């Protein structure tokens, strides 16, 4: 049995994983052109600005692409699992697993972020973000609780508890 691949923490993405350790999903944001993106990079992919900041994502989104994986890259992954591209409410695309019954996944499935332990990386555990199916959050709540200014993911979860909290790891 091999271990699941653990994210590689670098100087550039360190702030992202620090966010995960604190239970929040962070996005790269360009203050110059307001672009938001997930990949840690030294410049803005839209305007090439080098002055980049970070912001907390609201943690809600929907699945735009998916594949139910029955044959994994290694035996570290328990099959079947759902691999998906999530469009976060901030408009950023994110690769993720969706914690749900594989039969239920579909394009447009609303999801919320959860932070899970990704594995051990000296000197501490690394936590990473994935998403789980939104079960009880009524669509109207999206209007009453707009994403900006960002709310804490934990606040969202506490305010609207869902059945499938198993696997959500609070920091």
């Amino acid at each position, binding site marked *: 049995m091999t271990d699941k691949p653990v994210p590689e923490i670098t100087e550039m993405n360190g702030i992202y994983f620090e966010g995960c350790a604190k239970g929040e999903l962070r996005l790269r944001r360009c203050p110059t052109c307001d672009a938001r993106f997930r990949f*840690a990079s030294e410049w803005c992919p839209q305007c090439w600005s080098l002055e980049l900041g970070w912001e907390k994502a609201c943690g809600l989104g929907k699945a735009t692409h998916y594949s139910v994986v029955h044959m994994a*890259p290694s035996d570290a992954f328990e099959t079947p699992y759902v691999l998906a591209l999530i469009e976060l409410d901030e408009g950023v695309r994110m690769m993720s697993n969706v914690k749900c019954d594989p039969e239920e996944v579909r394009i447009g499935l609303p999801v919320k972020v959860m932070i899970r332990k990704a594995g051990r990386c000296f000197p501490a555990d690394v936590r990473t973000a994935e998403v789980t199916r939104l079960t009880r959050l009524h669509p109207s709540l999206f209007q009453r609780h707009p994403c900006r200014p960002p709310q804490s993911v934990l606040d969202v979860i506490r305010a609207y508890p869902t059945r499938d909290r198993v696997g959500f790891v609070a920091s």
Partner: protein
Amino acid sequence: MVNRAASAIRTGRANAVLCIGAGKFTKLSKGGGEMMARFLGDPSLEVPYGIWIPPLYGLLASEFIADHGVSAVEMARVAVSARKWALLNPSARMHHGGAIGVGDVLSSRMVTSPFHDLDCSLPSDGGGAVLVTRAELGRKWAPQPAYILGYGEAHLRGRVSDPGKLTETGAKVSGAEAFRSASLTPKDIDVAQLYDAFSITPLVLLENLGFCEPGSAARFVQSGATDPGGQLPVNTYGGLLSFGHTGDASGMSLVTAGALQVMRCAGPTQVDSAERLLMHGYGGIMYDHATLILGREP
């Protein structure tokens, strides 16, 4: 590779260039899956989610299927067409594999949705080579050389998580460039060799290269147009699906099969009308694209 060789010849740096491809697959049990994942994805933000080649193509396929309402049956028909050609080609892995129907594809083991086992190419070890040379030398060495008519290349994407449509690929750019440089249109092409790592990709390419209107490729394949005797024979050697996916050499398999058609040396798979042939290869998860058009007349 063929275009690089042609440039070297055009600029007088070479008279003839032998382009060789050789490929090998590392088995899943020997870490092949993880190797693919690291090669194609971000080590921190993609790899930990269990990506590797088939599910990344599964993501791409889910977009095409949702946009065009393609069914699993229609997608499976691509693999059926490839097998029909492989049965004619003695060099194909599946030459003795027997005919398959859509039902066989759909009842084969699920690998990663929407792909069943028979929707996936056959990992194989293999290779091939083509000799690129000046027209006058080509005419001396071969009764019917294949002339390079047009070429295009595009590299538009590096990760599946990058923004934008996964199925609007660099093939649109490389294809348009190839047709422009050859002064031809898709209607002038008699045979197409389209890289088919999975059954979805010829459908994407038929549309992106302009052979089919958006949303009509699945119906086109369903009609038998890509089969032996069809209106636009596709992957006349069996494709990656039924000839075999020869790793880094699978682009070369496609090029040699295309050149042999134009040179009238394709044996039992020969399409007599193959006056002008288009071949298209891509790398990554449809990240990097190259289109080449060959013809019997310069």
